[in-house]
């Protein structure tokens, strides 16, 4: 990929760069906007005079967010669910996806159908709730980890990636006397860093942002994640909830709090991606064929 000495090649490069700058602008904008809203003077924020840069300065909204004594507990909980849940997810997902990627695995078709079917049909919340109770998972941290152990979507993604690994590698390892589990660990995993990085990222983001399971299965405040707090602030501020609480006028500080809580709840997870990016570089497969 070094052929860009031609004029048209350079032109294409320039066009791509200009386009990417545009992408940066439109994608950075919402975050900058939220940040500016969160630290602006409440009056300017409520008047919606903040377009890009903060107007005035006030940390009042952050003060309100951090005044809540529960916030640190929920922060730690979120980290717990994200780290523990993601590790479990990734192990479960790849150990299912790899066998399903093997074209001649005799259960490949049936098992794939079995899991894809669950993407479409589900028994709904009530029987699942009963099950979680019967298994003694209700109001325990394990409810959040185990319930979403495997995302079908991610299994399919991972399986698709594994199928691009040359079959000849597996065959030659077999000739060397390795069994399937050994092949998986010594041959497949080292070649699968990009997809594992994707799984880590997607599962981690999923755990970080999820609140619904906690809402249903974790009544204990000490176990609840940060996102429940975010939900409380955001939805109560949208008017969706107006019908159930009339006669309430919000002070400006409370209107601003949603921007502060988004910053507080979002910044840490934003920094996960840059760390995983290095696994997306090309070259994982270099020399793979030679084995």
């Amino acid at each position, binding site marked *: 990929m070094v052929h860009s000495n031609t004029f048209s090649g350079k032109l294409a490069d320039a066009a791509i760069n200009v386009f990417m700058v545009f992408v940066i602008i439109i994608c950075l904008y919402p975050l900058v906007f939220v940040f500016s809203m969160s630290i602006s003077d*409440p*009056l300017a924020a*409520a*008047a*919606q*005079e903040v377009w890009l840069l903060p107007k005035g300065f006030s940390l*009042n909204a952050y*003060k*309100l*967010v951090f*005044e*809540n*004594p*529960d916030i640190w507990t929920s922060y730690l909980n979120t980290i717990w669910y994200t780290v523990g849940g993601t590790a479990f997810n990734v192990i479960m997902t790849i150990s299912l996806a790899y066998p399903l990627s093997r074209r001649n695995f005799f259960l490949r078709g049936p098992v794939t159908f079995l899991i894809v079917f669950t993407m479409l049909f589900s028994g709904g*919340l*009530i*029987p699942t*709730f*009963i*099950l979680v*109770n*019967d298994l003694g998972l*209700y*109001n325990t941290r394990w409810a959040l980890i185990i319930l979403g152990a495997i995302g079908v979507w991610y299994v399919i993604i991972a399986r698709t990636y594994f199928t691009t690994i040359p079959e000849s590698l597996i065959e030659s390892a077999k000739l060397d006397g390795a069994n399937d589990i050994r092949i998986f660990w010594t041959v497949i995993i080292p070649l699968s860093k990009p997809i594992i990085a994707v799984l880590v990222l997607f599962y981690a983001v999923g755990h970080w942002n999820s609140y619904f399971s906690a*809402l*249903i299965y974790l*009544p204990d*405040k000490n176990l609840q994640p940060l996102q*429940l*707090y975010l*939900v*409380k*602030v955001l*939805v*109560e*501020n*949208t*008017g*969706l*909830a*107006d019908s*159930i*609480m*009339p*006669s*309430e*006028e*919000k*002070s*400006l*500080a*409370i*209107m601003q*709090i949603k921007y502060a809580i988004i910053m507080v709840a979002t910044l840490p997870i934003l920094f996960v991606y840059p760390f995983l990016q290095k696994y997306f570089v090309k070259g994982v497969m270099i020399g793979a064929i030679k084995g």
Partner: protein
Amino acid sequence: MTKRTNGSAKIVSALIVASLAMTGCQSSGGPATNNSNQGAAESPKPSTSGSPGTASTSPKNPMPIVTDGSVTLTVAAPDNPFAAASLTQNLPVWQEIEKATGVKIKWDVVPGSQFQTAMQTRLASGKNLPDIILSNFDLYKYSKDGLLLQLDDLMAKYGENAAKIFETKPLLPALMKTPEGNTFHLSGTRDEEVAAGPYGWLIRKDWLDKLSLPEPVTVDDWYNVLKAFKEKDPNGNNKADEIPMTNYNGVTQLYNWGNAWGLHLRASDGFYPDAKGKIQYEWLDPRAKEMVAFLNKLVKDGLLDMEFAVNKKDQMTSKIIRSLSGATIAWQESNTLWTNKLREAGQADAQWVMTTPPAGPNGYKGHIEKSGLSNGYSVINRDSKNAEVAFRWLDYVIYSEENTKRMTLGIEGKTYVMKDGQPQMTDFVTKNPDGLGAVEVIRSLGGWQTFSQASRVEYISKLKLTDEVLTERAKLVQSYLVPTAEFAMPTEDEYSNINRKLTDITTYKDEMIAKFILGQEPMDKWDTFTKQIKAIGIDEVIQIRQSQYDRLMSEK
């Protein structure tokens, strides 16, 4: 092969075990359902149980309920709408309630907007139910199914505070009865809220003064005032950027304008009894057409925010604080915030006030609909081990004067002080250091929650009428207040019939009215509109509403 058979055998046995578990929990539900039926049979005259005549001289529900702190009630509720303080944090108001009742509370809270989802799941699976649910949604389905404790006997035995409230509000106990005449939930009252801090037409008084206009009285006055707001640059920036009137909560909020024509389209949703007690669907009334035509004219002439269907509270507040809009419909207490913020932003004369509701062109003087009478659905789990304590706790928390005062005014010495026997809000409420509004301050301490509360006008007015202008204006609109239409709980058939039909009718109605007002549908299509409403089946809905209404009137 053997492997496979084993695997599927395991699955089958797992299924059997699971289904046994299910039937197990079902059979425990069976006899209890019978119980509640028996309960209904045993108390043939439940309507007398709550009547005030039976109140004896000795208190039926003395506090504390327990002295040794041996009882802990699990209470599920939508969490504090003031997001920075959760009810689980043992907030001051609830510390005092614990002290007064002697009952410890274990909170089980869910964010308000998600409360229904979470509670319904738990109710429907019958698992992990708390002793008490302070619900903000209708629990009819569950009372019918016998998951909830029937309260009539307990009411007769302990309902001392409730009885006092029912004396002044005889409709309330009737509203809480199922069609069979049993009571499964307790509701607070809310109608007084409107009396104390009204909801209605708010206007920039300083703009009127600047343009030498009197406060508008009729809808025609309103048209002229808004026109002047648009054309005569009342915000003084030499730009014609005024959006004379704005709103929030979309097109349905504009239905309040029907009040000028003597219609009840918002709080009562158009279902209102006429002079003879016949329920009418007032959208079919020609006056509704006049109202819509009026609103259409406002939009066409640029007097009503053309974003009226989209606006949420944030958009409205923004237009008001930027001094773009000079009129809206909202709760009166907003005036304080808006006036102060406009002044902070440099408009020294700014003054928002509540004005009387507009009078109609046909000579009607106008009115303001109160909120519905009942508020919240507080219930007790049928399997609660402390049912009596739970009932007495509810009676105290929802209905007692002492506690309604606490829930509204907060903590004596902190949020209010007694002066000449009258409570007075402290600076901590009126000039909060964090810039919180009065209601938010009370909420930050745990008061003024969204669940059942028998509000009392004398306390709410202390909280909401914090200056002379507010007090005087609230008095001004008192004579315009009218009650909303109330209906008894539906029977099962009525419920399922009305639910789906009404969703279709409401969908069609809101869609068409929004388009009429925006001018996307011409007004001469009005006849098609009313015909279609009839075609969807409004007559059947009216009939059901009528029988609900008749039942309620006979209960009272």
